[in-house]
């Protein structure tokens, strides 16, 4: 099972890298979603796939039974999923606004903040400004 999940992690990571490198913002967001899923899968895998038994300590026992699942990765992934969900929602709204405001989804065409043509340079200051003589 582990090798299979490891390969799946690699494939998802590769697909997300491919999508993030796209110039289309929407594909970039899809890439981000995949990247988040790859991260969650890697944490799940790091916690080892021990067994299907729920990690609950029954009454009267001090420790988990052998073969119980590792609860820590589940807690980490749950946190990461919630955070990732919030971010993806935010970025999607941002993309929607960007499409409305800028009229494009092509990153090369989004040059509002960094215009391709900078404003003209000021004339060089050659010497200190001459003092205006008081009349």
């Amino acid at each position: 099972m582990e090798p299979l999940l490891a390969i799946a992690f690699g494939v998802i990571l590769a697909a997300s890298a491919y999508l993030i490198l796209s110039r289309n913002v929407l594909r970039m967001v899809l890439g981000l979603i995949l990247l988040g899923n790859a991260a969650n899968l890697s944490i799940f895998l790091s916690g080892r796939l021990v067994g299907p038994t729920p990690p609950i300590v029954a009454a009267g026992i001090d420790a988990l039974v052998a073969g119980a699942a590792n609860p820590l990765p589940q807690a980490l992934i749950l946190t990461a999923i919630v955070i990732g969900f919030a971010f993806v929602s935010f970025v999607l709204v941002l993309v929607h606004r960007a499409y409305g405001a800028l009229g494009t989804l092509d990153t090369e065409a989004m040059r509002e903040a960094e215009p391709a043509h900078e404003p003209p340079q000021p004339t060089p200051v050659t010497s200190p400004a001459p003092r205006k003589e008081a009349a």
Partner: protein
Amino acid sequence: MDGLILLLPLMIPLAAAALTAMLWRSVRAQRAVGVAAAVALLVAAVTLLVRVLDGGVVASQMGDWRAPFGITFVADRFAAIMVVIAATMALATTVYGLAHDALDRERAGFHPLFHGLILGVIGSFLTGDLFNLYVWFEVMLIASFGLLILGGSREQIDGALKYAVLNLVGTTVFLIGVGFLYGITGTLNMADLAGKVPLAENRGLVSATAVMLLAAFGLKAAVFPLFFWLPASYHTAPPPVAAIFAALLTKVGVYAMIRVFTLVYGGAAEWVGPVVAVLAALTMLTGVLGAAAHYDIRRILAFHIISQIGFMLLGLAVWTPLALGGAVLYIVHHIVVKANLFLIAGAIERAGGSYQLKDLGGLSRSQPLLAVLFLIPALSLAGIPPLSGFWGKLTVIRAGLEQGHAWLAGVALLVGLLTLYSMIKIWNYAFWKEPPEGAPAVSGLTGRTRLLMLAPITALAAVTLTISLWAEPFVAVSLEAAAELLSPTAYIAAVLGSPAPGPTVLGALP
């Protein structure tokens, strides 16, 4: 009691964010809460620093779960210094923000987001748990997204999109690195990791996680070649937001880098030093050359953030107590100076009507006080003695020369010279030359606005002058902090070694 001192700097911004969100309808009440919270935060932060300087590392376990299992908060000298400096910046920008009568921005949630940002920054400084650090990064990130697009101009949305996507990639790479590290060692507590990472058998995988964390923190800190989000977005934010971003966000990346590579990896990844040295040199050069090409004050300043990050990384690259001490001192100096320059940029815009150097001029005559206040951080940034930047650069460069990194020292000195060029450029065009034809004659920098804008600028300039002229105690504390970073036995003992109570055993339900 120690736990309270340690956690108050977190509880205050958290309470302020919640309270200002509840007072959504009244901007006046939000402002009052904001100022009160910023003052309280500074008091709490100074209390923490005094406690750490007196009694060493403070650690606290959340919910009384023993150290490697629960979440730990911990403050050593470096962390406490960073908390104090972050609190100072929060207060300065809060006061400055009052002058920016941007009611629509404040109605759209400026205050809750601002305190959320401070919460994320201070959480990142104080946490002792790697996954918790990821969570604080995300708290900081979501607040910064909100702050960046307040106002919603086309420019801001464009900048925010690039900022958001690149930073999300960075934090996700961090998360994958954390997952792998957990897979190797079975722990996420940084003090525990410090003991377990050197014992790991699979050295290749340890190096792989180190590369992932280096890339993720490097992206946060705007290190070459991962800096593109910074000059794309910072100049689109309103002045108080740009100032707090410039002061704190990249420095959290530098902090995390120093913390993780001194504590978790210790000497376990020897290749880090040379790699960081090359990255630092390229970061310094790219930043300063980018600044030389621009004629918008905010964009010049944004590129200089990148260049200064290189100086801080020199400490990690050279890896001696002197070098790391210099880096700590440099971070403190840089945060104050850089935030102040962004605040001054806002005041210049208010007085001269533009950020473009070609539209400005004559401010040395119309705003002589602002001109003097500009020169202090500007010359300090360039490292002119006896200002604070000089002491930071002197320490870092001397440490580099002692270790035989002559080329690094040479690059650092060249970058200092080019920094001076950019600062003189702003001085010449904005302050010295005649105002251009048809420039607006009426200055917006008058009365209450002038007071509220110049007061924090003057206060930060006073902090810079204090570090400059009374450098000895600051250098001493920085060197102590560096010594603590390089031999973190006290840190590890404070987190793991305290006689922890046994786990509470829940009895059977009746």
